[in-house]
Structure formats: structure tokens, C-alpha cells
């Protein structure tokens, strides 16, 4: 039976051979661009390390100035409770005005002002308020500082209540207090390097998966070499697919490099789920983004234009899909817009597989959404590409 199919087998072999030759051509061409290759390696190694180790979005050592108008045991006790890792005591000021000047200059983040007679008021059981002035030019950080300060003062206050009631009552210390035991899952120590280094890899994959094939295709258009390809026996589909295949291979290799050189040995990211599933999904994601890139290449005429289109499309994806900031907080129009961003789904799958250790049974919906988007984008690119050269 196979013998009668000899001819069609030969056709398939020829098709695959042509695809292979074209893919090889792309890889060779990329391999000869030494500055670009070096930059690719940097982006997936040292750059991942710098971002992973360097960025702490949690409030960290906020410079705190204190104006202590009381200089008593109680005020010292309170000041003592503002400590690292959240606050860093940065000295005392004589005059609140001096503190505000420091806040203006940006050399301090918060100013704690303890009123005179602080100790007396506490001893005399009068309610007393301390004041905190926070720099909110960076709103989330300012809010975080205020929240930590609130926690510290709240704890100070409830300790006072406890000791008073303890002293006043008949020995038993019964208090109706609701306390929370927090259990943080998937990353018990809230090690930020895991999140940041993985985020950085996702960012790099997105940028390269878009730019490499898009620039490669538009370059051929610009120089006119694509005309040569189109009069050859190679089909437009093979031209596009070979570029995507070559660049996807490069990206998978680079991702593996990042995991082997930085993620595992340096940051000790526990890769809980299946590595092969992660790479399969990364391949699917690269295809999807490459489809988007190729579509952009078909609507542009030169590399400068494709660069501009890339900026227009990629920067919202990078900033709004949830690798830089939490997704839930985004306004609903952003959330619906980002339903079109393949990165939105890739993030869930990546963190799901690498940190949470969940498998395809929970992630199938995200993978399906990504595959659908990829199919549509690739199809659209294909359609435009064919139409342009008919």
C-alpha cells in the first residue's frame, strides 16, 4: 500500500527538505550576526541575573526620619520598633520643617513626628496620636510605607492595652483578639528573585519572539530577496514557517540557557512541574508571538516601521499583562483588552508549571486560549503575505 504512495511520500520528503534548507539558512544568517548573537546570550544570562537579584518591589529599607518631641522611654520604645527590613532609621531632626526639606530632596521617604508629652499622655491614659508624613510621589510605595507604619503603631498600641488590662485584671489575661496565621503558598519565603527572574525571561522571550522573525521577513522585503524566494518552488507558507521554526529553536535554546545558568544554580528556583510541559508551552508561545510579528512584518515596508509597530504592540503587553504589576487591579477595559494578549495566558502557565507544580489538567484552558490566538495570528499573517505577492 505504501508503494502506491511512493510519489506522495517523495513530495512530502521534498517539502520537508525545502523547509529544512530554509530554516538552516535563517539560522546561519542569524549566527553570522555576531553583535546580535552576543546580545541574545547576554539577555538570557547576565541580564536575567541582574533583574532577578536587583529588583525588590516590596518596601525595603525606606529611609525614616524622626522628630522626637518627647525624648522619653515611651517615644524611644516606639522609634525602636521601626526597623529593617521595612524601615531604616535615618537620623533625628530638630525641626519638622527640616524633615520636610529632606523629603523634598528625596533623600528620605517618611517622617515620624512624636508629640511632646507623649509619655505623660500614655501614663495618664489619655489617647494620643503620632504623625507620619509620607512621600507619595511613588503612590504604591508610599502606601506600603504607611501600611507598615500603621501595623507597627497598632502593635505598640495593643501591647499597651494588654499590659494595662493585664495589670488591672485579676491575673488572667483574657482578651478577644482576632489574629491571622498567614501561610504563603508556592514561595514560602516570598523570595522575590524567583518572580523577577522568571518575569524577565518572559519579557525577553516576548521581545525576541516578535522581533527576530518580523525583522527577518521585512528585511527580505526591503532588499527584494523575497521576490527570488517566491519564484522558487518554495511556497509562501514554507517561507514564513521556516523563519518561525528557526527563531523558535533559538528562543528555546536561550530559555534553556537561562534556566541552566541562572534560574536553577543562582536563584534556586524550585522547578516543581514538568520541564517538558514548560518547553512545549514556550514553543507554542513563541509560535504565537512570531505569528504576531510576521503579521506586523506584512503591514510594514521596512525595518524602521516594523520597529515602531513592535513598540506599539509589545509595550502594552509587557506592562499590562501581569508580569510587571498585578493583573487583578487593572481596570476592566484593560483586562478585556489583555484577553487578546498571549502573554496573559503564558504567565499563568509558566508560574503554574514552574512554581505551583500544576499540570495540564488545570492549565488546559490557558493553553487552549494561547493556541487559538496563535492560530488566528499566524493565519492572518499568512493571508496578508500571500495577498501581497499575488
Amino acid at each position, binding site marked *: 500500500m505504501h508503494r502506491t504512495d511512493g510519489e506522495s511520500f517523495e513530495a512530502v520528503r521534498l517539502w520537508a527538505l525545502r523547509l529544512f534548507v530554509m530554516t538552516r539558512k535563517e539560522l546561519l544568517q542569524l549566527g553570522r550576526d555576531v553583535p546580535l548573537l552576543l546580545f541574545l546570550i547576554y539577555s538570557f544570562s547576565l541580564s536575567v541575573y541582574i533583574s532577578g537579584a536587583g529588583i525588590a518591589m516590596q518596601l525595603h529599607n525606606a529611609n525614616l526620619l524622626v522628630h522626637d518631641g518627647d525624648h522619653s522611654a515611651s517615644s524611644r520604645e516606639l522609634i525602636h520598633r521601626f526597623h529593617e527590613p521595612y524601615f531604616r532609621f535615618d537620623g533625628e531632626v530638630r525641626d519638622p520643617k527640616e524633615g520636610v526639606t529632606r523629603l523634598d530632596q528625596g533623600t528620605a521617604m517618611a517622617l515620624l513626628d512624636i508629640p511632646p508629652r507623649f509619655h505623660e499622655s500614655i501614663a495618664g491614659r489619655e489617647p494620643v496620636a503620632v504623625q507620619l508624613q509620607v512621600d507619595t510621589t511613588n503612590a504604591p510605595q*508610599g502606601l506600603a510605607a504607611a501600611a507598615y507604619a500603621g501595623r507597627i503603631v497598632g502593635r505598640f498600641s495593643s501591647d499597651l492595652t494588654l499590659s494595662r488590662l493585664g495589670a488591672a485584671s485579676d491575673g488572667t489575661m483574657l482578651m478577644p483578639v482576632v489574629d491571622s496565621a498567614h501561610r504563603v503558598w508556592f514561595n514560602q519565603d516570598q523570595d522575590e528573585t524567583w518572580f523577577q527572574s522568571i518575569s524577565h525571561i518572559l519579557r525577553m522571550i516576548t521581545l525576541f519572539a516578535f522581533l527576530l522573525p518580523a525583522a527577518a521577513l521585512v528585511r527580505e522585503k526591503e532588499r527584494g530577496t523575497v521576490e527570488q524566494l517566491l519564484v522558487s518552488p518554495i511556497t509562501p507558507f514554507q517561507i514564513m514557517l521556516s523563519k518561525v521554526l528557526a527563531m523558535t529553536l533559538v528562543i528555546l535554546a536561550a530559555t534553556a540557557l537561562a534556566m541552566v545558568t541562572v534560574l536553577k544554580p543562582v536563584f534556586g528556583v524550585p522547578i516543581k512541574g514538568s520541564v517538558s510541559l514548560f518547553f512545549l508551552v514556550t514553543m507554542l508561545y513563541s509560535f504565537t508571538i512570531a505569528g504576531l510579528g510576521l503579521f506586523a512584518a506584512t503591514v510594514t515596508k521596512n525595518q524602521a516601521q516594523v520597529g515602531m509597530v513592535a513598540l506599539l504592540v509589545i509595550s502594552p503587553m509587557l506592562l499590562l499583562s501581569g508580569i510587571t504589576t498585578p493583573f487583578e487591579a487593572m481596570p476592566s477595559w484593560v483586562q478585556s483588552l489583555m484577553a487578546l494578549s498571549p502573554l496573559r495566558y503564558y504567565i499563568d502557565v509558566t508560574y503554574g508549571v514552574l512554581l505551583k507544580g500544576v499540570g495540564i489538567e*488545570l492549565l488546559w484552558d490557558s493553553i487552549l486560549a494561547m493556541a487559538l490566538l496563535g492560530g488566528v495570528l499566524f493565519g492572518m499573517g499568512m493571508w496578508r503575505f500571500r495577498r501581497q505577492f499575488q
Partner: protein
Amino acid sequence: MNVRRITAVARKEWRETVRDRLFLLMSFLLPVVWMVVFGYGLVLDVEHVPFAVLDRDQSSLSRDYLYRFIESRYFDYQGSVSDEREIDRLLGDTAIRMAIVVPERFEQQLLEGRPVTVQTLLDGTFPLHADTLKGYVIAINRAFTQELLTDFLTRTRGLVPEEARRLAEPVSLETRYLYNQEVRSTWSMVPALIMFALMVASPLLTALGVVREKETGSIYNIYSATVSKAEFLIGKLVPYFVISTINVVVLWVIAVWLFGVPFKGSFTAFFLASLLFILCSTGIGLVISLLVKTQMAALIITIIIAMVPTILFSGLLVPVSSLSPGAQVQAHLFPAMYYTDVVRGSFLKGLDLKAMWTDLLVLAGFAVALRLVAYGLFTKRPKA
């Protein structure tokens, strides 16, 4: 240095840009689109966090407690579950970010005046998120405890509610938010977005300029022409400098009129710093253009160098002071950080030239250094 030759190069460059309609359109459109999309869309507050509850007590007090989470704008109630395995699944699927487990005999214990521990399970994949959530939970617990305590003291000690309340909270904290009283993240975001737009779009304007001529071979016209190295490099920059300067004014108008961000500082200082910053960002593109051989390399390297440090190390999202020492070095080696200080300072803090002169000096230093590097890299006598 001959002004006529500079004008000639600039005019040629300008014509090329103007004839490329899509490129010209994008160079004006991109900054505006970013400003509007990110100004309205990029929200950094941790709000509407999806959560589920497991109420083992099912009493009126436990419902009262949980209701405080449900009605808070920080949380988004996704429903109640009946066992812990359900929570595992929901957290794994990122359907929820937090779960609260109220223990049995919650009401009974509290009414008897005994402490109770409620369990919260948090998704730690985004550590900042988890940390902020802890803060919210603690704040709600504290408010709830204070009410319970006041009530308890009134009941058991016969104090009047006023006195009980005083005993329950002897020391309080008053917080004043400086520069941005309502703590709007738009106000802190929008001025920094001017930096983002100039830093990310401007280098790409110049990045392909020289390498394109190298690739197509038209650079040989320059090699054999009388135009000098410096004249050529200056002429190349002029059109893009003009485009970016127009963008600064447009972005400033959008920030002030559309977003209503107060501009408290000196416009002269802001404008001067912006011009210096444009010289830096276009200079980065120019240097990359001189370093690489292909447009493809120039394009990819420029986009990544412009975008990644700008998102991470410019003070846009994370203040430079909370970076690790290594990352701080990188932040200081990149002009964006200084300009972010100037922009936020001029808009929100009302700083003038005197308060910001060091930042301006550094920006000027970067601009000059980048020009010198470009001058050194460009040669009219290419190797065979």
C-alpha cells in the same frame, strides 16, 4: 563646522523621514498612545484581589467578620468553599489569590474573651502582592479586634463605651500623604510616563539612521563627500531632535490637561532637562547604530536596551533606593533615572532649577559622553 552642510544632511534626513508616512505617523502617535493607555490603564494598587472563604463556624460573628473582606474594595469575593482541597485547586489555577479559613467555635471563643487565630492562605508567586495582602488582612483584623475589645470591656468591666474605646486604642497613627494627597497612582505614573515615552521611542528614531546607509551602501556618498564626521552626525540628529521636542510639549499638555496632574515646578527647568534627556536617548540610538552591522541587530538591541532598563531601573515602578547595590549601579549608568527625578520633582514637588541642578548636570554629562563615543566610533575610512 559648516552650517550649510549640516543643514543639507538634516534636510536629506528630514525628507526621508517625511516620505515614510507610517514611520512619521508612529513617531508622533506612539508617545501619545502610551501616555493615554498607561496613564489610565497601568494601575499599581493591589485591589480587587480574588479570594474565597471557608467558614467552619457559620455563626453570625464569623459572617460579620468575613463581610468586612467581602465589602472591601481591596478584595473581590469569589464564593465560599466547603473543604481545603477545593482551596488547593483554586489557588493552583489562579482563580483566587487568597483564602480565609475561619476555625470552629470562632464566635464562642471571642465572646468568652479568648483570642482566635484565623488562617489565611496566600498565593506567593507575586511576592509584592502577598505582602500587601498580609497588610490588608492585619488592618482588618485590628479594626475588628478593637470593636470586639470595646464591646468586651463595656460588657465585663462596666466601662462606658467611650472609656472602653480609649483603653482599646491608646496610641493612634495619623498619616499625611505629601505631594500627592489623595495618593493617586495616576499622579505618580503620568509624569514618569513622559520619561518612558522619550526613552523608549526616541532611540529607535536614530538607531537605524547610520546602519541603514551602511547596509544599502549609500554611506559611500558620505565617505566621499566634503561633509565632516561631526557635521554628518549632527545633521542626522536634527530631525529626530525636533520630533522629540514637539513630543515633550504634547506630552506635557496631556499630563496637565487630560490627567489634571498639577505642575508645581519651573517649566524652564523641566524643558531644559527634557532637551538634555532627548540628546541622551537619541544618542543611545546613534551609538548602537554605529556599533552594529545590520539593521536587524540595531533594531532588536535598541528596543531591548531602551525598554527593559526603562521599565525596571528608571524609578518608573520601583524606586531606585530599593534596588540591590548591583542594580543601583546599573540604574545610575542609565540617564532615565535622573530624568525621572526631574519630572516627578517638577510636577509633584514643585522643585526649581536650583534644587535639581545636579540631575541636569548628569544628563548633560551623558549627552556629551554619548556624542564623544559616537564621534569616536564613526570613521570615514572603513576597513576593507
